[in-house]
């Protein structure tokens, strides 16, 4: 697998690595205390002391954004992990076993797909109460259908190949075929799809938190910070701009890395005629 070296991919990878690192190490970085009320003037503009300004309670905004990055990545990451495991099992079963399993899984995924993510968010929040857990559930539910479709589709392709038929004739059980033969050949497409699911997950999480259905105060995620800053958009836009920029950067870098992985795994470079 050759990783692309073009500037955008490298930039995306560096950005993503930096953001993830900051998110992980956040609490230990000397960037200030996100909870210290009154560390500076309320709604203070960005300055050398406080690079992202201060919020309406006088808390330094930069450390809150750092917290937010961590929370956003953590929540979307956890949700995508659930999607990965569940989706892979269901998708392979649907594609390889066919019949009733396929009907159930594929139609179930279609039904789920029909719900807009935010509607799902409202439903889940109504049932489970708003919070991080329900955000994870919603993101997972929203990204699962497409992921299942991709895995199922690749499985269908792999299932007809010579080595699978040979294994069946040799008496391999369905489990063995799926684990040894189908899964390794599905991983490539799955990983690519998962990175896109991650970026979608981050958008959904932000939207939910913006609506107040996701992360609850005093915890912060980038979406809830946007919510926090939006009433003050006209007088103190630095909060919305700060959180918004970081969110955009995070989503874009995930997408760029996803593209890079896809290009590395499936180099379908168009051949320009010489």
């Amino acid at each position, binding site marked *: 697998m050759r990783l692309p070296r073009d500037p955008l991919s490298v930039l995306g990878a560096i950005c993503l690595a930096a953001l993830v690192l900051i998110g992980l190490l956040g609490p230990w970085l000397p960037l200030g205390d996100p909870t210290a009320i009154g560390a500076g003037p309320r709604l203070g503009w960005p300055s050398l002391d406080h690079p992202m300004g201060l919020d309406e309670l006088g808390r330094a905004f930069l450390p809150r954004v750092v917290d937010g990055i961590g929370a956003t990545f953590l929540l979307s990451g956890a949700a995508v992990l659930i999607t990965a495991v569940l989706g892979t099992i269901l998708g392979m079963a649907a594609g390889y076993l066919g019949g009733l399993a396929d009907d159930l899984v594929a139609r179930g995924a279609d039904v789920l797909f029909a719900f807009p993510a935010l509607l799902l968010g409202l439903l889940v929040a109504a049932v489970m109460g708003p919070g991080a857990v329900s955000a994870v559930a919603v993101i997972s539910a929203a990204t699962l259908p497409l992921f299942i479709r991709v895995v199922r589709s690749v499985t269908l392709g792999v299932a007809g190949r010579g080595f699978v038929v040979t294994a069946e004739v040799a008496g391999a059980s369905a489990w063995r075929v799926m684990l040894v033969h189908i899964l390794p050949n599905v991983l490539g497409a799955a990983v690519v799809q998962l990175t896109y699911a991650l970026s979608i997950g981050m958008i959904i999480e932000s939207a939910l938190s913006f609506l107040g259905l996701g992360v609850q105060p005093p915890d912060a995620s980038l979406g809830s910070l946007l919510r926090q800053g939006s009433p003050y958009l006209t007088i103190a836009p630095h909060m919305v701009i700060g959180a918004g920029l970081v969110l955009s950067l995070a989503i874009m870098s995930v997408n760029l890395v996803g593209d890079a992985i896809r290009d590395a795994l499936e180099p379908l470079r168009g*051949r320009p005629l*010489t």
Partner: protein
Amino acid sequence: MVEAQELALAYAGGARALDGVTLSVAPGETVAVVGESGSGKTTFGMALGRVLPVGAERVGGRLTVDGVEVFDAAPERLRALRRDTLGFVFQNPMTALDPTMRVGRQLARATGRRAPEAELAALLARARLDEPERVLRAWPHELSGGMAQRVVIAMAIARSPRLLVADEPTASLDASIRDKVMDTLAALSAEAGAALVVLSHDLRLAARRADRIAVMYGGRVAEAGPAGEVFARPAHPYTAALTAAAAGNERPGERLEPIPGTPPALFARCEACAFAPRCPMAIKRCHDERPETRRLAGRDVACHRAEEMLAAPAREAAR
């Protein structure tokens, strides 16, 4: 129509696909270029229209198609060549046809003008398709492999090209319709007065349809000559070895003789005979000196011992 002189071509990464191909195709002639994987035949076929991947470079010789120097021509001249003079038929008709467009529409586009449906139907009828009107309205995936390939052939000759290049046109088709598809190809190219270059690994197909056969090995033409004679009386040991290894000509109980060793992968000009390591007739000279292509008894052959090959009695027919 086609004049290749010591054409040498390398891909990005250095792999030398063609190592001095000398071949000519007269207008209206059908030439079968025969060879195994790695012989360079596909590269040569694609080079005729310069349909090559990025990074492929001509590293020697010249190629002239219909008077145009393919590797030196300006882009517009080259595009005009591909559009008006050349037609390509590839191995897999399903990838050559656009799955999102009905056949009729693709065929109309191939003609390059607003051809009336009657004309398109007539074209398909000439391609030996039954119910041309139904085929025009069909989607590509509704056609069988043989039908799809005939549509592709019809599209290729839609603009009356003067040179048709077919790369393994029947390899992915059933044995039963291969004949029909080859008939279509031969007939349509004859009607258009086009020269036809067929690239194939199928010796029997080549022998039956072509005026001349060129056998390629190691990026060069080992031998080229009239179809009826090349296999019956080979001038090059590789041709002889190939016919000895091909099933179909043996007697019951006779053993097929595979050619020992593997074809070479070249990265530089081969300064000896590329076939020498596997050749039953190799002498010291073959390992030291690159054989030049010479004309001998109506053949073009690149072998130091071609005279002895030709002097040997012709192989008797199998039955």
